[in-house]
């Protein structure tokens, strides 16, 4: 909050297309555009929430940001270095700055390794410390995530879901990373444990100055933990705004629909709430609709939506969205003001490319 904070992560026009093979000769017949031109920045020390429904490409995006998949296009600049173009060895050396916490704590821990071995794996890979020093660090990490040191020699199957997630978090912390992608870290946990894990993540963020990309479909939890939120739909970001702005004045119809689905604790407001129910299914990412991706389900769809892809631009300070509706309201206002802003995202992308 004090010094001008820099962008730790700059993602520009990130694309990840999975090829689809078909036919007799197994030729490539198309692409699943899991992530299709996503751009966002994450400021050092903040938490960017990434929300969206199942299958919209959130997790893929999170993994692509760490280059766990080979990117189809775009750049990911972490700490000033474009990891999309690094060689394997350079990437390996870069890994300590960026780590990941996985969705399913059961699946993300090797059942044949002890907790100490799991947490110590990053140390084995990136340090030449003595065994005693590694163990020291492992115990330190176990303390930090609230695991009893006695558990070091146990195996993952002996733990509850919450404890397993703590092991996963300790592993991610082992090398003092700056940036952690939390890929739905709470989705597989029950509600009481969710709070514990989220509080732990917040506490660790404060202590170690971490930057999070927090992927989740739990809008309430994202509101709690994130500083800014990006909403994804079908491989693209449709809206990105600070938490308060996004939850109070959502601009994009999809965000509005998504937010209207969040249950309200107060029954009085819950019954009076206007619920926007989207019709139909998410189109296949291998064959997205022409124009706006959301045009097949948008309650306020217009002609232009089916033809032209809406530009992604800033509508209020720090509040980005991609929707023709917003441009329409803009054009009612003084036209001179609208023009330069219209070009802004293009310039922005041009700089990064």
């Amino acid at each position, binding site marked *: 909050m004090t010094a001008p904070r820099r962008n730790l992560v700059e993602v520009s026009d990130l694309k990840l297309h999975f090829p689809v093979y078909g036919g007799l000769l197994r030729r490539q017949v198309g692409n699943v555009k899991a992530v299709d031109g996503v751009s966002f920045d994450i400021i050092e020390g903040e938490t960017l929430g990434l929300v969206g429904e199942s299958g919209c490409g959130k997790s893929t995006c999170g993994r692509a940001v*760490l280059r766990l998949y080979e990117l189809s296009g775009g750049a990911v600049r972490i700490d000033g270095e474009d990891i999309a173009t690094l060689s394997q060895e350079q990437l390996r050396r870069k890994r300590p700055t960026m780590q990941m916490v996985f969705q399913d704590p059961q699946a993300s821990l*090797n059942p*044949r390794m002890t907790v100490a071995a799991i947490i110590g794996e990053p140390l084995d*890979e*990136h340090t030449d410390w003595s065994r005693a020093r590694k163990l020291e660090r492992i115990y330190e990490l176990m303390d930090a995530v609230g695991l009893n040191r006695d558990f070091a*020699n146990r*195996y993952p199957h002996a733990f509850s879901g919450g404890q397993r997630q703590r092991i996963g978090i300790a592993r991610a912390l082992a090398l003092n990373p700056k940036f952690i992608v939390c890929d739905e870290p709470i989705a597989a946990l029950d509600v009481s444990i969710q709070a514990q894990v989220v509080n732990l993540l917040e506490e660790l963020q404060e202590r170690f100055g971490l930057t999070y990309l927090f992927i989740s479909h739990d809008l309430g939890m994202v509101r709690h933990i994130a500083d800014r939120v990006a909403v994804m739909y079908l491989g693209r970001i449709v809206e990105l705004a600070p938490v308060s702005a996004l939850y109070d004045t959502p601009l994009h119809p999809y965000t509005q629909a998504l937010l209207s689905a969040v249950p309200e604790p107060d029954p009085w407001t819950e019954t009076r709430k206007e619920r926007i129910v989207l019709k139909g299914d998410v189109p296949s990412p291998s064959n997205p609709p022409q124009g706006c991706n959301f045009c097949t389900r948008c309650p306020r769809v217009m002609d232009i939506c089916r033809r032209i892809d809406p530009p992604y631009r800033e509508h209020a300070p720090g509040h980005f969205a991609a929707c023709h509706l917003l441009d329409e309201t803009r054009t009612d206002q003084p036209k001179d003001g609208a023009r330069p802003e219209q070009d802004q995202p293009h310039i922005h992308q041009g700089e990064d490319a």
Partner: protein
Amino acid sequence: MTDRATDTAAPFRPPRNQWWDVWDQFKIHRGALAGMVVFVAIVLFCVVGPWLWIHDAGFIDIRARNQGMSWSHPLGTDQLGRDMLARMMMGGRVSLAVGLAAMVLSVLMGTLIGVLAGYFRRIDGPLMRMTDLFLALPLLPLLLVMSMLLRERLSTLFGIEMGMFVMIVTAIGVTSWMQTARIVRGDVLALKEREYVLAARSIGTPPRRVIGRHVLPNVLSPVMVSATLMIATAIITESALSFLGLGFPPDFPTWGRLVSDGIDYLQQHPSRAILPGLFISLTVLSVNYIGDGLRDALDPRIRGR
């Protein structure tokens, strides 16, 4: 472990830990222990026995041929008057050595090819087609050709018996790794999509160590099972080869050869075929139980139950 241990002696605890856990679990597996005892007994019988026993396996005492069990020949003698006990011991040496060596070779090859094919997508196709090719090869004609081509050369290189041993082990190993490779490949294909492999990649673990640390330990169970079965197959294949005259020289005892020699006298002296057969079965069974116990002991999820 006490609290004191965590505070002061803690750094010395984990390193030895895992293998002691394995041993602790192995110890309580009754079948595995029994198998271990039987296997060690058989090995001792074959390795130490010939030094202690008065008769030589190759000594022909034609006057004492086709004898039944007696104090001087506890298992009787064969049609040439050779002591059966001595032949069993000497034959066991060869059979065990061939079985174990061929098993090790074929498991190593199978695992290597299976892991490479499963983990590296690019070489999956070629490697698996090669596996199919080997599966389609008829074993016996191949061995025939191999022994024709290589027997002389290996004999001059390693000596007659050692050369034969090398040839048989290679022949059996090279023609029996395919099942293992297929099983391993299938498992690796599933394992490499697991999140902990992804986690290892996100840590920056290079593929060779991902394989060593995360993939191999988890394909251990099927490999272990196929390895124990492989020993039996190898011993029996060796006997088949010897029977066809492609293996060791006729006067050279192996369990497989003893069985096939005994078949001719099955009506008069059934023990001559049954005993070596029994030893083959016992070896296979004991190794199987050891493998079973090891597999359980190596799996932390089963351990402690």
